[in-house]
């Protein structure tokens, strides 16, 4: 394999592994803050029990996010020196502001949040938790500003092959930023909600029906049920924004090779780069045109009408994986919320599905990022700097060595992380003596014991 491809795989591996953990912590921190505030309000110790369990998982996820993030600041120099040499005047200040306004804030107050509760008054501890939440949010803001600028660059001029900023407001509020930021923050909310719901379901299935678990479960199910329709709406807006600024990405996502009117929404197909057509198409007539142009006969430009275009297959499949999980999230969270509102119980099968969907947010988030990032190829900064032109001259053997090291490290850490989460959930459970695992329902009502259900 050539050095450029290896360097791209390495960057993809680093950033994919990294994004898993911020995706959890950005929103989990707000959930923790919610638990704390509910405790202050109601004085119900169950909220603190929920906090005590989830803060452990937050700490572990945060640590993984921090250390995998350090790698990123080195990657630019080791593998992509052309990026900073060309657009450093834009990227530099944005990255600097991320470190200055977010990293130190979250890292320092994390120490107080995690270990300071017996050294500071309760309100300072809650304030520290809030500051960590704000810090993670700020970090997400700055990095998404930079990422969005790479898709829809604005507010700059090129002088002697270098970008110079003409208007910082236009750089920061570049056309795709508001959509991408909202989409990502809600993605984080959904990822955290399904993580909380999944591990809580796991504990309920193990007959751990303590009040803390039930409160966490309800928070997560209602949270997910509220967020998912908003996410689908924001995702649609983001898609329309992409159609305006990066139509070639939409063409690849929809598998539209030649410009057509009344394009079908393809549910399934196998795109073929060689023959430039799809095999085994299954589609709903005219729906893609309707969604994207809001007209039945709206025109969608085909991949072949663009001078540069991204590879079709990863975008086509990635988009379907993301949307598929989104639909699943909608069905599961609404059904669970419906059951909770109606009868305050969750059927055992729903709990099993929630356990299976513990990390569904990760898969949807990664699939979505692959669609948007691969969709920018062959550009690193759309229309300004190509990926190939920004690569460094590190020999392929060096990159192969570092990539092997990273991949093996990531595989071990991911395994350790997932197994530790379930281990923590198991060890937090105190199994009652009269365990009955044949119940079909878990009753969520603390008064009635679990007779064929789980009460919340």
């Amino acid at each position, binding site marked *: 394999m050539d050095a450029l491809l290896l360097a791209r795989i390495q960057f993809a591996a680093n950033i994919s592994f990294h994004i898993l953990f911020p995706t959890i912590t950005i929103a989990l921190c707000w959930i923790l803050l919610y638990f704390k505030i509910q405790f202050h309000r109601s004085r119900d110790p169950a909220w*603190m029990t929920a906090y*005590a369990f989830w803060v*452990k998982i937050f700490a*572990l996820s*945060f*640590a*993984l996010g*921090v*250390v*995998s993030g*350090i*790698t990123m*600041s*080195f990657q*630019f*120099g*080791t593998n992509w*020196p052309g990026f*900073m*040499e060309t657009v*450093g*005047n*834009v990227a*530099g*200040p944005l*990255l*600097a*502001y991320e*470190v*200055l*306004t977010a*990293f*130190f804030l979250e*890292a*320092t*107050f*994390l*120490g*107080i949040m*995690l*270990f*300071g*509760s*017996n*050294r*500071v008054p309760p309100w300072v501890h809650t304030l520290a938790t809030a500051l960590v939440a704000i810090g993670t949010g700020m970090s997400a803001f700055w990095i998404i500003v930079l990422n969005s600028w790479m898709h829809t660059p604005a507010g700059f001029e090129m002088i002697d092959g270098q970008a*110079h*900023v003409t208007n*910082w407001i236009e750089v920061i509020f570049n056309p795709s930023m508001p959509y991408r930021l909202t989409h990502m923050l809600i993605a984080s909310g959904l990822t955290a909600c399904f993580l909380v719901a999944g591990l809580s379901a796991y504990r309920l299935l193990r007959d751990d029906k303590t009040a803390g678990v039930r409160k966490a479960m309800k928070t997560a199910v209602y949270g997910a049920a509220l967020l998912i329709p908003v996410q689908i709406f924001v995702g649609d807006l983001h898609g329309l924004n992409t159609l305006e600024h990066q139509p070639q990405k939409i063409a690849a996502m929809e598998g539209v090779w030649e410009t057509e009117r009344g394009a079908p929404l393809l549910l399934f197909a196998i795109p073929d780069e060689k023959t430039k057509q799809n095999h085994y198409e299954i589609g709903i007539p005219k729906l893609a045109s309707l969604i994207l142009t809001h007209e039945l006969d709206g025109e969608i430009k085909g991949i072949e009408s663009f001078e540069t275009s991204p590879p079709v297959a990863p975008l086509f499949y990635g988009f379907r994986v993301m949307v598929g999980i989104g639909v699943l999230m909608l069905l599961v969270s609404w059904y669970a919320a419906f059951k909770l509102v109606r009868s305050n119980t969750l059927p055992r099968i729903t709990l099993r599905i929630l356990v299976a969907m513990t990390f569904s947010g990760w898969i949807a988030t990664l699939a979505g990022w692959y669609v948007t990032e691969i969709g920018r190829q062959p550009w690193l900064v759309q229309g300004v700097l190509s990926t190939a032109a920004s690569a*460094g001259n*590190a020999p392929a053997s*060096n990159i192969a*060595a*570092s990539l092997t090291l*990273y991949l093996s*490290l990531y595989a071990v*850490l991911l395994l*350790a992380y997932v197994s530790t989460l379930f*281990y*923590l959930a198991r060890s937090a459970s105190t199994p009652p003596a009269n365990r009955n695992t044949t119940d079909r329902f878990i009753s969520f009502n603390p008064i009635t014991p679990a007779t064929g259900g789980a009460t919340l």
Partner: protein
Amino acid sequence: MSAIPDDLLPVIFLGLMGVAMLLYAVLDGYDLGTGLLMAGKSEVHRDQMIASIGPFWDANETWLVLGVGVLLVAFPVAHGVILGALYIPVTLMLAGLILRGVSFDFRAKAQAKHKNLWDCCFIAGSLLATLTQGYMLGSYITGFSQTLPAILFALLSALCVTCAYMLMGACWLILKTTDELQQQSIKSARRTVPLTALGLVAVSIVNPLVSPEILQKWLSTPQIFLLAPLPIATAALLYGLYRLLDRYTETSNTSEARPLMMTTGVFILAFIGLAYSFFPMVVPGQLTVWEAASSPDALRIILWGCLFTLPTILGYTALSYFLFRGKSTALSYM
């Protein structure tokens, strides 16, 4: 801000980068050193050592991100040259930092039977990080030369920097722990003082040998007289530290922070020495600070940010050290 001349901006950023790197070496130095010293300790002691760095290690590492970040945003060309030349050691260092950062959390959360394994990862990760940082410093000093003597020097530097971090860690533990662990730390500190001194002497000899400009800077008059207090003060501090540690048990009224202060003093003096020798080069023998700098506009907008955020950062860092002052207590989230 626009009153600052364009020529001065890169110098300000070089200073900022230097201070961030110095703070990193001192702050992460004590927690890396603590990690190194965990080798061979009992589980109770290891728990205490981890507890002493728990609230701080994350923020400490952020100084490295700032230092490398300033290099990246203010001197993008130098960032590419330096990290390109140090590709393999940088990768190994990152692997080490990842390993120790996650082990810190896994050791307390994963199954009890795996705790020892995670402790080994923590120690190994710390060692990998300190050795590679030392190697990179040595390699930087020789201008990334790949000759045998240069590589040997970088290896020596790897060992001595590791010893200096151990010294820092031991001094931190003297301040933060009590009884047996504190006594062991005093011994560790005393053992690592001579090796740290050896490293400083080695750098001081090699530095002028590899670079005629540095030789010129050091040994011509009147610089030699202005520079003379630096090695003299360093030697005095190290000797004083050694003596202090030697009779530490007898003089129980000695301030427990003093060894840490003295070691920090040695780090600062060594840093000043390096900074003086290399200025205005960012990449020794290749790039000056002005050649490597970003556009003045970009630097100005970052400087604005620094003006407001750095005092705030220093403020809440101080708050954190104040809140967790005194002997460390067992880590608990509740």
